[in-house]
């Protein structure tokens, strides 16, 4: 129910997911308030490993604006994993599951 145009009616959501390997993924997102909501801001934290570490910001950026459905999220996470990055302790599905927990 968007009421005031230009003002974000953001809604904060949280999701924690423990990957099979034991690493914890924690998602905090805000979502746009309209009929087809997308991720507005996103922060992924946890005790996993990613090399180079700064790439986490690219992943967060890549997911910003994504619609809240599994296919769209998976596609973007897959694109990220296909790049020049080594993620240790969590795979594509773990990230997607954590994101969906927040959705």
């Amino acid at each position, binding site marked *: 129910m968007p009421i005031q145009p230009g003002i974000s009616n953001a809604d904060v959501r949280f999701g924690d997911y423990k990957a099979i390997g034991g690493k914890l993924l924690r998602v905090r997102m805000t979502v746009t308030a309209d009929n087809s909501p997308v991720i507005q801001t996103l922060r992924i934290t946890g005790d996993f*490993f990613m090399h180079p570490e700064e790439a986490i910001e690219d992943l967060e950026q890549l997911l910003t604006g994504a619609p809240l459905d599994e296919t769209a999220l998976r596609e973007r996470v897959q694109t990220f994993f296909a790049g020049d990055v080594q993620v240790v302790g969590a795979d594509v599905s773990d990230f997607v599951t954590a994101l969906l927990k927040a959705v």
Partner: protein
Amino acid sequence: MAQQEWRLLLTGDMSAFDNMALDEAVLRCVVAGASPSTLRFYGWKPSAVSIGYFQGIEQEVDLDVCREQGVDVIRRLTGGGAVFHEHGSEITYSLAVKDDYPGIPKKVLDSYTLLCGGLVVGFRRLGLDAAFKPINDILVNGKKISGNAQTRRFGGILQHGTLLCDVNLQLMFSLLKVPSEKIRDKLIAGVEERVTSIRREIGMADNDVVIQAMVAGFAEVLDIRLSPGTVSDEELALLERVKEERYANPTWNFKR
């Protein structure tokens, strides 16, 4: 190939900020060719909580309790989980080497296996039945005794980790956030089952003895000789710079 000579640094107890800044300074100097490949052992004074690169500081740490207890809090350059470095109860090691060093696997997981293997040999020399547990832990009798974390940057590899000599779970869990207060005692009981220390296993944990065992372990698995050395002036200057830019800087520590 002739056996490589590495530098052994024993820097004793330092603050969290100096410790993490020195790890980075050494890594940068090793990569630049200004310092030899280095294995370092150190302690933390005052006690500190280090969190992994990707962790949310306020999600993981009770900052008020840390302040009351005089415990510093710092974000590491490496991923992984929160660690309580209690003064006098654990030994931290760090290893810095160029990323094209012969024999160190390009795949992060494989390099943990190799480098943690040095610790496994070290623990066995102390009489502990240690085993590497992927991704980054070492277990004794099925219980965790060491956690390790690695970063690859600037053209080098930095791996550091904690060797538990003693363990004070009550204090540790007062500093770390738990999902709910109701389950705090249950959580501690669970961790009690899953974590051990050198003292608990063999009744002693003399720092020098532990360090010598680990030095021998790394020397064996890496086929290197380790000679005691000192921190260079260049490393000290760099320590001050990265401490200011990063480790003692709230922008860094609170970035997540």
